[in-house]
């Protein structure tokens, strides 16, 4: 079963990379989720809001339409602890804007062009994520 997960991971990854390639070659833009959202949130990207809105609308609608293809119930398995959820959301929002990118922008789009910023960012967010798991799961036992 685990091996199937890897194959689906690779297939999904190729789809994600192709999506980023369409955005780059088609629109000349970096497919970074935090940047696309953040530009609407802080109004710094209103000049091309249609492009951002279309991207985000399809990002919500297309996976929603795919749900019936699954025989099992699709779930995010997100924690019920809303205090954790709020803390995590704030950290992700502040962090991705300070760093100017997230997993898609720095990870997918940055590493693939050998961007030093993308690679350094990816090292730090992976390390911080790993340390968060050690601290909050294995030491404190809250997640």
């Amino acid at each position: 079963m685990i091996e199937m997960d890897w194959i689906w991971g690779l297939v999904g990854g190729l789809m994600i990379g192709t999506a980023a390639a369409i955005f780059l070659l088609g629109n000349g833009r970096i497919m970074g989720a935090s940047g696309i959202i953040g530009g609407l949130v802080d109004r710094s990207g209103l000049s091309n809001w249609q492009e951002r809105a279309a991207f985000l609308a399809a990002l919500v609608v297309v996976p929603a339409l795919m749900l019936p293809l699954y025989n099992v119930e699709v779930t995010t398995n997100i924690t019920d602890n809303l205090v954790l959820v709020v803390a995590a959301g704030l950290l992700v929002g502040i962090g991705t804007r300070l760093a100017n990118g997230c997993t898609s922008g720095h990870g997918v789009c940055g590493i693939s062009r050998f961007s030093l910023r993308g690679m350094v960012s990816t090292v730090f967010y992976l390390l911080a994520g790993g340390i968060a798991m050690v601290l909050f799961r294995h030491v404190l036992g809250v997640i």
Partner: protein
Amino acid sequence: MLRTILAAASGGLFGAGLLVSGMTDTTKVQGWLDVFGAWDPTLAFVLGGAILPMALAWHLTTRRAKAIVGTPFPARPDPKLGHNLVIGSVLFGAGWGLVGLCPGPAIASLSWGGTGGIVFILAMVAGMLAANPIRARIDQAAAI
């Protein structure tokens, strides 16, 4: 119009890929980050799979003057790393590990993510609004 259609095609394929790859499941993301637990390597296959077509796309940008809609390709960013890149990446990684969601999958799972998913997105938006004043404070402190 073409610009909007291509953006929707990209966003839709991104969302489909996130669902298919399992990245909208927070346990798979946390499983990857949990090196000392039941480690799940799926995320490495997702990231590796995503980098392949994108590396090809970057290569193609060197052979064309402009994108299909006529806009120039994004210039290479200033290679300067800076404190905000490091501080921001650490904060983002910590939040990502805490619940296993990053911005793309959070939006993609909006329709089935329930209350927790919506609360995460609202908190993330609040964090994004807070980021500009926080950046100003950090830059001020760094300048001293």
